[in-house]
Structures are given as structure tokens and as C-alpha cells.
């Protein structure tokens, strides 16, 4: 699951990490909208390059590359399905045209742009910043708490799953042997202790929450607060401008396909 490695937050500090998550999210959404607006290659290629300076400024090139590499598999599937089905539906038995090739490539590139922008977002936003952004965006506190607590326990549950697997392996359970059905059944001795443990854990957490005055006030206060800074305003306005420009082009400017640009058609 190396594609997911490209989404894990790394504890580094950079100008990009310090940007307000809400503004970053807005930026990513704008990229998303722009990617959907266009289905010709040139604008999509341009879009692909836009997040790159952010990647380098944040110093997350290696992880980003990993997410791109992971996305390659799904991208190949998208390309093949799109190309093959559209071909057989429209152009068969003629020879496939350049525009079909371009259309399928554009679909695939769109997928890459999506993965790329969200990857940059998650790589440069710490989960607690994210939780804080949710809180300040007036998402009910219960959901924000559930989110940050879940993230907090991911490594704990991962360790516990490993321990449970070790404990059952030490009783002769063989996870790699047997046909598909047997292998699925062999995971029951792993899943049940994991689930039971999760339930017990939530009970203990609930006790601890209550004991720390959970529910005491209608409106909670917060140790931290997100404040918008110059860089945030800059990015926000930049995103708005990009969006306006993109909509204008989409409405009034005929976008050339790559084939046209390169002199084919």
C-alpha cells in the first residue's frame, strides 16, 4: 500500500506546513475544480505542475514521489478502461484516433492531479492542525474529537494487531498457508481480540473523558487557535484568481488539444 505512504504526515516545519489548513484545503479544492473543468491535455499538464513548487518548498519530495508511484497502478487501470471501452464503443473497427488517445490520457492525468494535490495537503498538514481547522470551521466538537482520537490511536492499534498476530502464531496459527477461504478464516483469531480490545479501550477512554469533565460546558475553549497570516491571504487570493481565470478560459477560450498544438490532427 505504498500509495498511502504518500499521504502520511511528516513532522517537519516549513512555510507550507505553517499555512492554515483551511486555506490549503481551499487551494486543493480549486485545483480539483479546475481539473474537472478541462478535458484536454495542455491545461491538465499545466495543472500538474502547479503544486510542484509547494512540494519542494515543503521538502516532501520523497513521500510525494511515493504517492505518485503508487497511483501509477490505478492510473494505468483508468487509462486502459477508458481507452478500451471508448474505442470499442465509438471507433471500432477503425484505427484509434489521436483525439481518443488524448482524451484517455487527459482522464488519467486528471487522476494524477487529484492524487498529487491531496497528497501535498495531507503531507504538509499535521492531524492536530487538521482537527483544529475542523473545530474552527464549526464542525461539531464530537466529530473533531473522534477524528483526532482516531489518528492518535492508529499507531497503537497497528502495534496491537502485530502483537495479536504474534500471540496467535505462537499457538501454531499459520497465516500464510491454505486456500483463500482458509486464509480468511485464519484471520478470525486476529480480528476478534482486536475488536474486543477496541471495545474495552473505548470504555476506558470514556471513563477518562468523563473524569476530565467532558460535557461540563456548552462551549469549549481551546489551547490553540488558528490565525490567518499574510501567506494565507496570499494563497487564498491566488486560488480565487486562478479559479476565476480558469472559469473564464473554460467559458470563452477554445482550448487546443495537444494534437493541435503539436501540429497533428
Amino acid at each position, binding site marked *: 500500500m505504498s500509495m498511502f505512504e504518500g499521504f502520511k504526515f511528516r513532522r517537519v516545519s516549513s512555510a507550507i506546513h505553517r499555512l492554515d489548513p483551511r486555506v490549503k484545503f481551499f487551494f486543493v479544492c480549486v485545483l480539483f475544480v479546475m481539473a474537472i473543468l478541462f478535458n484536454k491535455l495542455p491545461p491538465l499538464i499545466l495543472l500538474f505542475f502547479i503544486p510542484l513548487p509547494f512540494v519542494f518548498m515543503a521538502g516532501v519530495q520523497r513521500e510525494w514521489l511515493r504517492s505518485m508511484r503508487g497511483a501509477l497502478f490505478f492510473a494505468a487501470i483508468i487509462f486502459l478502461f477508458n481507452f478500451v471501452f471508448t474505442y470499442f464503443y465509438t471507433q471500432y473497427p477503425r484505427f484509434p484516433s489521436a483525439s481518443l488517445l488524448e482524451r484517455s490520457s487527459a482522464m488519467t492525468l486528471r487522476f494524477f492531479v487529484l492524487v498529487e494535490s491531496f497528497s501535498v495537503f495531507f503531507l504538509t498538514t499535521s492531524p492536530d492542525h487538521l482537527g483544529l481547522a475542523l473545530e474552527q470551521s464549526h464542525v461539531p466538537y464530537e466529530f473533531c474529537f473522534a477524528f483526532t482520537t482516531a489518528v492518535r490511536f492508529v499507531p497503537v492499534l497497528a502495534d*496491537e494487531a502485530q*502483537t*495479536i498476530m*504474534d*500471540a*496467535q*502464531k*505462537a*499457538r*501454531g*496459527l*499459520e497465516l500464510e498457508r491454505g486456500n483463500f477461504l482458509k486464509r480468511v478464516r485464519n484471520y*478470525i*483469531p486476529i480480528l*476478534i*481480540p482486536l475488536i*474486543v*480490545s477496541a471495545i*474495552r479501550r473505548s470504555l476506558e477512554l470514556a471513563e477518562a473523558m468523563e473524569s476530565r469533565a467532558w460535557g461540563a460546558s456548552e462551549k469549549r475553549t481551546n489551547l490553540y487557535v488558528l490565525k490567518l497570516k499574510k501567506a494565507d491571504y496570499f494563497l487564498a487570493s491566488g486560488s480565487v484568481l486562478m479559479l476565476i481565470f480558469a472559469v473564464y478560459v473554460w467559458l470563452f477560450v477554445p482550448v487546443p488539444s495537444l494534437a493541435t498544438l503539436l501540429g497533428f490532427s
Partner: protein
Amino acid sequence: MIEVKDLHFTYPTGVEALRGIAITIDDGEFLAIMGQNGAGKTTLVKHFNGLLKPTKGEVVVDGVNTRKVSVAQLARKVGFVFQNPDHQLFCETVEEEVAFALRNFGFEENAIKKRVDWALNILDVMQYRQTSPFMLSGGERKRVALASVLAWDPQVVILDEPTIGQDHQQKEKLRQFIVQLNAQKKTVVVVTHDVEFVAECNPRVVLMSGGKIVVDGRAEEILTNPKLVAQASIVSPQITQIFLGLSDLGLPTNVIDVHEARRILLDFLEAHVS
């Protein structure tokens, strides 16, 4: 017999947990591996049943190199009782739980029945045979977990921190149980940082610190040596501390047992009354 030769182990995260361990454990020994949390004790014992394979060096169990066999094969000889019984329990009844490993190892049905009976009996949980393990108390679940490991009669039994959360009586019962296992010629390896418990058992002690073995010897020599104890970040038993405080009076300092302490003090007083 377990032989460890120049064992090095580094976790995938890059943490070097074991740095050159060499140790031999004979059949029928009772060994306590001690040291503070993070010294590498559990990492070491996980090599005995193949859960971890050496990064460098080798571990040989009964003539078989652990790198060449699966965990299931090694587990047949080396039983491992984990610290938290809830990481194992998943069956609908205690009986099935204890039979689980036996089925994995391919025992026959009547052999399974006999062994389950035997294990439930010696751990005093026969009355819970048809009960769901999740309904039992903490101490009872620990006994069920222990029964499920002993059921297949492994030659070596490893107990990882068995005294955590146990009260005094439970620890005493555990101690007696280990003595019983030892009497049946089983090799018992206990990973623990409970000094008082080890002082009562007086086994061979291997003291670890920072991924290395600091010293390997008898409990009464090691736990009474202030330098070694400080090096491994554990504390001496209270009785030892008392005698260390009286060493200037010419009393011996390698005392860990309270009855031994009485004998020594009585002898001292008799000798000095005249």
C-alpha cells in the same frame, strides 16, 4: 536446549534492540531475564520461538536453526505466554480456547480432549469449561491463557511479564506453579522486572541493559550487587537493601530471602552475645 550465538537484531524502524547476545539455556533450567523496560528482554525471547529472526548471528533451538523453520514448527517446542491474555482469547468457550493450539498442531480428537482436561485441571479453571473467556475476571483469563499454552506440553515455557497487575497471593501461586513446571523438567524462562518476585524464586538471572547482557549468574549474586543493579536500572530487593545498609557491621550482603535474613541475624546475635 537453546543456543544463542552473537545475536544482533534491528527493528524495521531502525532501532537496534539487540547488540551481540550470546547465551545457552539447558533443558530444565529456570531463568529470569531482567532489566528495565526497553532493555531488549522481550525482543530476545521472541527469537526463541522464531517470531523474530536474527539480523545477524543465530539462534539454535534443539539443534534447529530458527531461520530455517516456521514459527508454528518452533512453537511446538517453545510455548510463549504473552503479557496480556486478551491478545489471545477469541473463542466462545474456555474449552475451545485451550484446544485451539492443539488443533493447529494437528492432534487427534481424543488426545485433544485429554490434554484439555489436564490443562484446565492444573490451572484450576475446570469449572469454567463451558464459559465464555470474556466473562472471566482478569486473573482467571490469565490462567486460561496459560492453560492454552501448556495444553500442548511444550518443552520450554516463556512467560512475558507474568506478575504485572497481580496481587501478592496470585504471585505466590504463580511462583509455586513455576516450581512445579520445573520439577517436571520443563525449561522456564520468565521475562520480568519484578525484583521481589525473582528474589523469592532465586533462579538463574540474566541482566540486560541497552540490548546487551550485563551479567549472567545466580539471583543472590546479581541482585545484591549495587553496581550491576544500578547499571541495569532495577532496584535491589528490600532485604538486600537492609543488609547493604548494615554491611559495616560485618554482615554478608548477598541476602535476598527474608528467612535467610533471620537466620543470619540470629547467628550474628548469638556469636556476639558472648
